[in-house]
């Protein structure tokens, strides 16, 4: 299973599913009001810079994942501590995204179902798929990507043809100046979802050898496309709902699509949105879960990754319940605490540190690299 390599289109599809997974759901950059879509574009650019940093590290250690090369950079013991922290970080993100989805489903469909039931079902599916191998996850992604893209196009056409949009809601652009937008954009939007590309530091070694040179190009393309989709989606939400409503709804996309009513026949399409979101969420949680399994494997020296997928899945279920006592608290944490105290250290500060350490110890490491390759 470890020998399985992904090719460029699978890599691209994985990035898009991963980026759009949960971000398309929540009101991203909504602090900027009607200029949220611009805030997303700012965030995207910042995220791309971060990704270039990850790519730099990847180029130095093309066969190693993040948790493996920190052990080279800092030595085994300190490296393992860093690896362990990253494992916890990925686990926490998996739990967060799972909670997002559980909450969405509860509010949209299962009002009386306990969240743990919904989450368990999701994790059970993910564990099943991951046990079949990362390869299966990627290929499943290919199939559902086509489906989701198709549904996305259909929904967009329906929103356009239902004549719901009022572009006046988007005007004036930069009505309060650039500063509020920048304030809203940083630090939240670069970190979520673009900075979460940090998980790809664990997945890039899976790329086929001949495709390694294009990892940066395709990665940035994937981020660009997903940033564009996110930005237009948010713009659409605002144009349908109006800036004020859009900022105060938990799930603006759902609210916008629910307004579609064509000829009293095509209506209440929010269930289709929920369907595509389940798929997106599935992939996002699955990627986080898989990455934390890989991290745990490196840190604890587990031979068979399949043996720890189940236990880690259980950990994710339980922590998804434990991280917040209700949805408001969960969202508040997500917007106010997590970006500053969790995302920025793990996405920007630590990778920057790794790069600095690498540059300082370059000579010694080169010796290591040459000896390990021979």
């Amino acid at each position, binding site marked *: 299973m470890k020998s399985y390599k992904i*090719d460029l*289109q*699978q890599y691209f599809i994985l990035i898009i599913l991963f980026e759009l997974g949960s971000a398309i759901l929540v009101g991203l950059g909504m602090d900027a009001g009607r200029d949220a879509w611009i805030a997303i574009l700012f965030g995207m650019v910042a995220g791309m810079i971060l990704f270039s940093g990850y790519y730099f590290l990847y180029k130095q250690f093309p066969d190693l994942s993040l948790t493996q090369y920190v052990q080279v950079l800092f030595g085994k013991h300190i490296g393992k501590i860093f690896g362990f922290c990253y494992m916890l970080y990925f686990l926490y993100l998996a739990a967060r995204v799972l909670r997002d989805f559980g909450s969405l*489903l509860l509010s949209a*469909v*299962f009002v009386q179902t306990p969240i743990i039931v*919904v989450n368990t*079902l*999701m994790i059970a*599916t993910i564990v*099943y*798929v991951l046990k*079949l*191998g990362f*390869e*299966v*996850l990627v*290929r*499943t992604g*290919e*199939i*559902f990507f*086509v489906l989701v893209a198709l549904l996305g196009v259909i929904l967009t056409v329906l929103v356009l043809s239902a004549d719901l949009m009022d572009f006046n809601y988007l005007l004036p652009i930069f009505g309060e100046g650039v500063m509020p937008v920048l304030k809203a954009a940083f630090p939240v939007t670069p970190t979520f979802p673009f900075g979460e590309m940090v998980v790809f530091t664990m997945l890039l070694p899976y790329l086929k050898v001949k495709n390694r040179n294009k990892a940066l190009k395709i990665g940035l393309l994937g981020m660009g496309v997903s940033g564009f989709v996110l930005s237009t989606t948010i713009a659409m939400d605002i144009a349908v709902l109006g800036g004020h409503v859009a900022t105060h709804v938990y799930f603006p996309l759902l609210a916008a699509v629910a307004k579609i009513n064509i000829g*009293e*026949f095509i*209506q*209440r*399409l929010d*269930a289709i949105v*929920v*369907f595509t979101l*389940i*798929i997106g969420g*599935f992939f996002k949680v699955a990627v986080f879960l898989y990455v934390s399994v890989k991290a745990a494997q490196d840190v604890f020296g587990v031979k068979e990754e399949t043996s720890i997928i189940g236990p880690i899945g259980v950990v994710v279920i339980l922590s998804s319940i434990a991280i917040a006592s209700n949805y408001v608290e969960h969202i508040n944490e997500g917007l106010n605490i997590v970006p500053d105290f969790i995302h920025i250290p793990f996405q920007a500060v630590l990778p920057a540190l790794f790069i600095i350490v690498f540059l300082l110890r370059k000579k010694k490491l080169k010796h290591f690299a040459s000896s390990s390759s021979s």
Partner: protein
Amino acid sequence: MRNRRKRPVIKTHKKLSELVAEKKAGERSSFQVSSEADDYKSQEKQVKEGELSPSLEFNVSRINKLLGNPTDLIIREFEFELEQKVTATLMYLEEMNDTQLLSEFILEPLMNLSSEKQSSPVPVGHALHYIKQNALALGKVQDVETEEELLEALLAGLSILLIEGNKKGLKLGTTGGKMRNIEEPASEVVIRGPREAFTESIKTNLSLIRRKVKSPDLRVERFEVGEITKTDLAIVYLENIVNPLIVKEIKERIEQVKTDGVLETGQLEEFIQDETVTVFPQVMSTERPDVVVGNLLEGRVGILVNGTPFSLIAPAQFIQFFQSSEDYYMRYDISTFLRILRFSVFIISLIAPSIYIALTTFHQAMIPTTLLFGIAAQREGVPFPAIAEALVMEITFEILREAGIRMPRAVGVAVSIVGALVLGQAAVQAGLVSPAMVIVVGITAVASFAIPSFAVATSARLLRFPLMIISSIFGFYGLTLGLIVIVAHLTSLRSFGVPYLSPFAPIQIQDLKDSLLRYPISHLFKRPVNLAKQNATRTDPYQVKKKREEETTR
């Protein structure tokens, strides 16, 4: 009642006693044989185990004993003249040989032999060689040296010629007997296309394939499977196209098959498939020679088994089960339409009841308001939740379907009448199910019949039930996750190393042209990537086209 009961008991008693008597008689006769064999004990010591003895009588009695004195074994003793009079024995199983062939081309020329016609007298020891060269007017004549070989040939329907004083015998290809004619395919009917189907005879089937491909690269390799039945099996492929690794893999798997008997390719399929725990067929089966040949041209391998008209094609991809041979005989536009239709039909038969359950149980808001009122009104009198309603109807349908297949024709009508009542108006009027549910079950049933491959229709049939249950608990959420699990399972499957879901996952753009879509034949100039690695390009259609254009402009 008692009398009735007693009678069969007596009957079986009689039978038993008869059986015992027969057994005793059989033992006695075998005793006799063995006592006869005692006379040749001295000879037996000279003859090694399993080899033929020069003594004709000894050989014949041995074979007779080994086969248990079968009544259909014909032993014809006769004499012919070489240097001197020679006794010979012709043995064959009566119903498996062509008696006319035997008398015209073996007995007659041999009995007409006389020493005068021979240029120099032939000693008895060379008799075998001489008559093989000069007297037997048959194509397939081979030496037999061991007893085992002899028995095998005899049981395979060849006739055996043994000659006094020779340690070898001859096996003669006089196979005959009754076989079914080539008929129209019963399970894969097409409107436009060849009308011949395979029969139970592997020879006929191979000839059907040979006639369609006149290429020297067509390879036919024979195997024998089944420890007891010793069934003939052949694999066919085009050597210049096929991936040799796949052929090697298939051969290895066939050689590993250890079983008592193989009566149908379905049994073989279970032995050679990659994954056992799955509802999806990993090998394709067909009874149409043109389908086999079409697949050979794409680089697949055909497996024929004697005794069944169904041949296997490996490796198989999921999408193949939605393709019909007719797709290539009709215009590409209608073929593409039909393929998409068939695939949608598969999806419908898989999830239609689940969608109904999810909608009525959880997502009523998604149903247009007027329709919702209608359904609600219908369901008002129904005491069961949607899942119970759906399960009852689906299971009733499955029962009727099974009954319809197994019933004798005459009773079949009754089944369909009762079925129409149960699945229709009566059930609705009795308040057991709602009319909408009847429609859903009806659509599902019709849809499952529209899938060209029976094997894939069965997988949809089986998967329908778990999906119904999960969507009754979790609505569309459960259904979505169920579908993810199914797709993930499909992507994890491989058929002889080839990803089952290719060309969709992993995506192979070139192969997508002949998947759910069918591009015009002139655009399909590449063979499937996974199958024909060494010879990926078909005969280039553009050259033909160009030539034609040039000719017309002249």
